[in-house]
């Protein structure tokens, strides 16, 4: 297929589907590096294809495109993201507050220590790249994974949330943060430069002290 200047891997996939093989299935949406839908395995590494220049990854002209690892394949380059989001829920990755909209706003200072920790990790858009890159996810099918645990960490540090005890129980154990071996493939590959490994380390500290205090 024609090689163009500034071509992205998504351009390549789109060209293949439009001109060479109309049966090819793949996912994309914004194509400008904001939504994370176009994540695939490119030359062995999980990437956003819309933000991956062919010239950067295929210097020798060889491009291998595959669906994201660690997820069931629906068809061709499309994976089933359900397990990824199911684990998000399992890690109690949702906010639960005590107030209703009739109550006053909860004041949270952005410079506070805990809010800074949340802000560092909150930008996750659930693209699945970290999850696909993690070997522990491959070795332990029940491991919650970096994204779910990272999100749990942002909620653990949210002073408004009232489900902290349940959340610590949800993220602890062999299927939770304690399975992480700090391989740091997640941090290495995150397209938003987040650090799930660091969030997971934070969860390890909190769950350990809770367990030692008999609060877990």
């Amino acid at each position, binding site marked *: 297929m024609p090689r163009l200047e500034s071509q992205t891997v998504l351009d390549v996939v789109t060209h293949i589907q439009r001109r060479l093989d109309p049966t090819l299935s793949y996912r994309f949406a914004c194509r400008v590096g904001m939504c994370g839908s176009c994540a695939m395995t490119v030359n062995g590494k999980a990437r956003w294809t819309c933000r991956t220049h062919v010239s950067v990854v295929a210097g020798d002209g060889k491009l291998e495109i595959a669906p994201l690892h660690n997820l069931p394949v629906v068809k061709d380059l499309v994976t089933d993201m359900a397990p990824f989001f199911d684990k998000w829920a399992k890690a109690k990755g949702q906010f639960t507050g005590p107030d209703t909209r009739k*109550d006053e706003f909860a004041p949270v200072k952005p410079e506070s220590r805990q809010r800074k920790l949340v802000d560092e990790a909150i930008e996750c858009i659930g693209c699945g790249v970290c999850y696909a890159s993690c070997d522990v996810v491959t070795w332990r099918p029940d491991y919650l994974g970096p994204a779910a645990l990272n999100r749990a960490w942002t909620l653990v540090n949210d002073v408004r949330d*009232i489900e902290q005890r349940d959340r610590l*129980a949800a993220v602890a*154990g*062999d299927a939770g943060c304690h399975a992480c071996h700090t391989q740091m493939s997640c941090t290495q590959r995150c397209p938003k430069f987040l650090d799930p490994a660091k969030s997971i380390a934070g969860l390890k500290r909190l*769950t*350990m002290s809770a367990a*030692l205090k008999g609060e877990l």
Partner: protein
Amino acid sequence: MTTSASPRHAVTASPNLRLQVLLWAAHRISAVVLAICVFVHLAVIIYAVRGGLTAAEILGRTSGSIAWAVFYGLFVAAAAIHAPLGMRTVLSEHFNWRGRSLGIVTVLIGIGLAFFGWRAVYAVVGAGPA
């Protein structure tokens, strides 16, 4: 939907989960103990191999010594906790091994290391004919 009037019922972790976390903590705490012991051990080894190693040199140092008995006894205990828990993770991840049988093997490795380790400590600290 909750209101600030009704208290939430907190769910505590299952005993199994608490055990997993405590085992992890034991692995880390034994690691700290081992780090200290290994540091001393490396220093001793590096010093002792100078000019060759003889039984007289080793036993001369350890024989009848309460200090070495306590040190090496603690060293063995920490290793007998740390190594089996590490092996448990390796076995479960690479061979997809879960459940009770893995737990039994873990404990057996620990018992084996403790027994042979303490026997070795006994051997060098003072037992048997000179």
